[in-house]
């Protein structure tokens, strides 16, 4: 699913130099990771909570994201709306995001303004003033967000249905934004309950990257986060998706012109960064299929057979829920059906299962790993994202150090082996968009409609 472009960097997970990275832990359990980067007089500060849609229960889907919105609505000391004004007055940029695995709040500031960020985040970690009045307004904003993000976007609808088909049991089956019914029935008390449950120093990581000294960040963190009390966190029960034992299909009808097909296979996520082999092989496989414009799917299906106008493949090994999928999707060319494109994509997968990949392809993907490792150092935000994501999903940022070597070690045989092992029909889920014409309400005689 395509969301914001700046987010797309997570598709591929290159490593970074960690020479200046330091980590600390406060007595109350708050983890702190600082990476010094002195190229510009700026700093990015992020607070990561180990709370996302993964931790929600039926009937209250979307509450992690709703709480994220409410975190800007004031504390005992800071009035509603003031948080953003204080950051803005310091020249800062700020925002927050919620995923399946985490909720993250960030500021980007000129380096001398870091104390403001630390102070405000420590305050709202425990002092949120979540009123019924503010909740009543903000829940409407979130429903507008769901309409904009999902209801009126045919491919988003397909993705939502796909998730709830490929996962029957695991909470990754649920949309992060929540079902509309759950949003309509959500109360301020639901949000308060979520906040009390998960917002505590021992369930968070502070990540700071920029023109700072690690020891000074630690001092600030001690000053503001230090006095906060650790809380006992609820048990996290393991949630395991039972093995899929037969092909699954879902069709979504929505107003659109072109069909769309989205296919997925259950595959292993990263569990043990040192010992695992398959996740790295799957990462290389994603690169061979779709890592660049010359990769197999684009070359064979868009450029040569021209059965697709676009096609994509992706795999994300870093998951706190320890479940993940390998996804293939695409839009058929005019006159071609979703079924034809599905068959063509599966044929590409089949070719790898039977004939493997070439040494040339393997080297090409590895060359890109090396370059990406250098390029990502141009973005402090990106580097902070990688650290925060790893720490929050139960790994260490140190995984970044071994990651390129792990990818370099993957062989063509291992890539073929994972394709054979996981890309089997009984393990496949397919969602398709059946486009519906816009009939009676179609604009007539307007120049922009064809």
């Amino acid at each position, binding site marked *: 699913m395509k969301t914001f472009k700046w987010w797309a960097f997570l598709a591929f997970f290159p490593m970074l130099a960690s020479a200046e990275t330091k980590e600390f832990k406060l007595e109350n359990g708050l983890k702190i990771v600082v990476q010094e980067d002195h190229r510009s007089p700026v700093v990015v500060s992020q607070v990561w909570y180990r709370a996302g849609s993964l931790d929600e229960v039926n009937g209250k889907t979307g509450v992690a994201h709703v709480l994220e919105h409410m975190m800007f609505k004031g504390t005992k000391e800071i009035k509603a709306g003031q948080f953003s004004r204080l950051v803005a007055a310091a020249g800062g940029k700020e925002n927050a995001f919620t995923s399946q695995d985490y909720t993250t709040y960030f500021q980007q500031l000129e380096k001398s303004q870091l104390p403001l960020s630390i102070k405000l985040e420590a305050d709202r970690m425990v002092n949120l003033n979540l009123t019924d009045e503010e909740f009543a307004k903000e829940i409407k904003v979130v429903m507008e967000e769901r309409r904009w993000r999902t209801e009126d976007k045919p491919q988003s609808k397909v993705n939502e249905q796909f998730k709830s088909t490929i996962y029957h049991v695991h909470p990754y089956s649920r949309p992060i934004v929540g079902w509309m019914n759950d949003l309509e029935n959500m109360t301020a008390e639901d949000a308060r309950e979520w906040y009390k449950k998960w917002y505590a120093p021992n369930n968070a990581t502070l990540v700071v990257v920029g023109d700072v000294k690690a020891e000074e960040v630690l001092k600030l963190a001690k000053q503001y986060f230090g006095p906060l009390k650790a809380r006992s966190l609820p048990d996290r029960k393991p949630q395991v998706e039972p093995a899929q034992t037969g092909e699954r299909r879902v069709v979504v009808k929505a107003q659109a012109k072109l069909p769309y097909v989205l296919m997925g296979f259950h595959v292993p996520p990263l569990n043990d960064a040192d010992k695992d082999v398959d996740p790295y092989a799957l990462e290389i496989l994603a690169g061979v299929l779709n890592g660049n414009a010359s990769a197999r799917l684009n*070359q064979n299906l868009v450029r040569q057979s021209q059965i697709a106008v676009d096609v994509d493949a992706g795999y994300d090994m870093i998951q706190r829920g320890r479940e993940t999928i390998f996804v293939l999707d695409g839009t058929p060319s005019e006159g071609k059906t979703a079924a034809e494109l599905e068959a063509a994509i599966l044929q590409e997968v089949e070719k790898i299962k039977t004939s493997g990949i070439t040494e040339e392809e393997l080297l090409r993907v590895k060359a890109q790993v090396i370059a990406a490792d250098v390029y990502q150092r141009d973005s*402090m935000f990106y580097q902070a994202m990688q650290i925060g994501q790893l720490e929050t999903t139960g790994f260490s940022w140190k995984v970044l150090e071994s990651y390129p070597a792990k990818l370099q070690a993957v062989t063509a045989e291992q890539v073929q082996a994972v394709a054979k092992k996981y890309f089997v029909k009984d393990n496949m889920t397919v969602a398709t968009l059946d486009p519906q014409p816009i009939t009676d309400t179609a604009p007539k005689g307007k120049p922009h409609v064809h």
Partner: protein
Amino acid sequence: MFTNSLIRGLCLSIFTLAFASAAQAGLNIQQWKTSHGSEVYFVENHDLPIVDVSTNFYAGSARDEKAKSGLAGITRYMMTLGAGGLTDQDISKQMADIGANLGGSLDADRASFKLRTLSSSREQTKALEIYTKILQKPDFPDAVLSREKSRIIAGLKESATQPESISSKAFSKALFGNHPYALDEDGEIDTVTAIGRDDLHKFYTQHYGSQGAVIALMGDMSRAEAERIAESISAGLPKTASPPALPAVTYPTSASEQRIAHPATQAHILLGYPGIKRGDVDFFPLYVGNYILGGGGFVSRLTEEVREKRGLVYSVYSYFMPTAEIGQFQVGLQTKREQADEALKLVRETLNKFVAGGVTEAELKAAKENIVGGFPMRIDSNAKILDYLAMIGFYKLPLTYLDTFNDEVSKVTTAQIKDAFNRRIKTDKMVTVIVGADEAKQ
């Protein structure tokens, strides 16, 4: 597939980036002209082993003729899909083999080509060799053209069903009328169908001359290396004069409102007026003023009134898009279709009050604090600096533009903002497009 994630607000910074223009003291921009008349802007920096190049031409969609709308975009894209005997697949493979990234974009004014490569000799040499071929020796293979036209047409058909695209297309048409800024960068189904290989050749020869091309260079290279790179890019470009200026934009003579039916759950609403040019005398008052109106993320008046106080929208914004000729001033929002009229009324009231009454001293102070204080983040990466170099060069802004940006912002007064908005934004002549609302309750 990466972890799907929701974000609290739309990334409004993409709009303000259009304004972004900045440099801290010490960002040493070197500027010269190649022997073939291309302008070069260079910042040397050896912190990272990366070389970034951006070459820019006055070859945006405003250069299209109506009957061949989409030609500028197809020409730019097709240049990257076959050059000097290399096929599209050769180009992609060879770039991937050295980890180089080829990028670029097209807007109404500008066609740009970006290259990011490792600065190590083997990689850099190979990457620049391919990049230069793309700029100098496009092949425009027929088979590739026909394939890409089909893809573009499929995209146009899909867009014609989606409210976001429908509204922005109708808005540009209503705002700019017969001016080429009304033309869609992707063209129309009929006009794209009509485009042939000869059209691409002709467009390339006319619009990709070395005279006036702007080459921005950033990163791990010496001045001598930068000169060599710029010279070799410039030398093989067509010997064509710079394209003439675009026609002037005319202002709407009366207000208009267009309602387009659509079954979506949300109405998509856009309203606006012709705004400002690059280098406009009113740039700073309007920029700072717009931050207060609807550019400043979560602290703008529009966000406060429409989202924070009433929960009517997820996103509401305003921006000026300064272009070579007068570009869009746009206010936009999406809201549940049943409440479209209520939201639109509120937006109009907020805008009218803003234009008529101006801003308070406290609002101005807060705006300046954010813009001036946030300056270092505008240029905190090679990628961002490269874009600013290209923008300054392309729009012929003074080299000191970056150094004086914060001073210019600091000088803006409440009186200037009120005066500039009053003169420039005629609230009784605004263009409005509403897609997917229920019937107006009059």
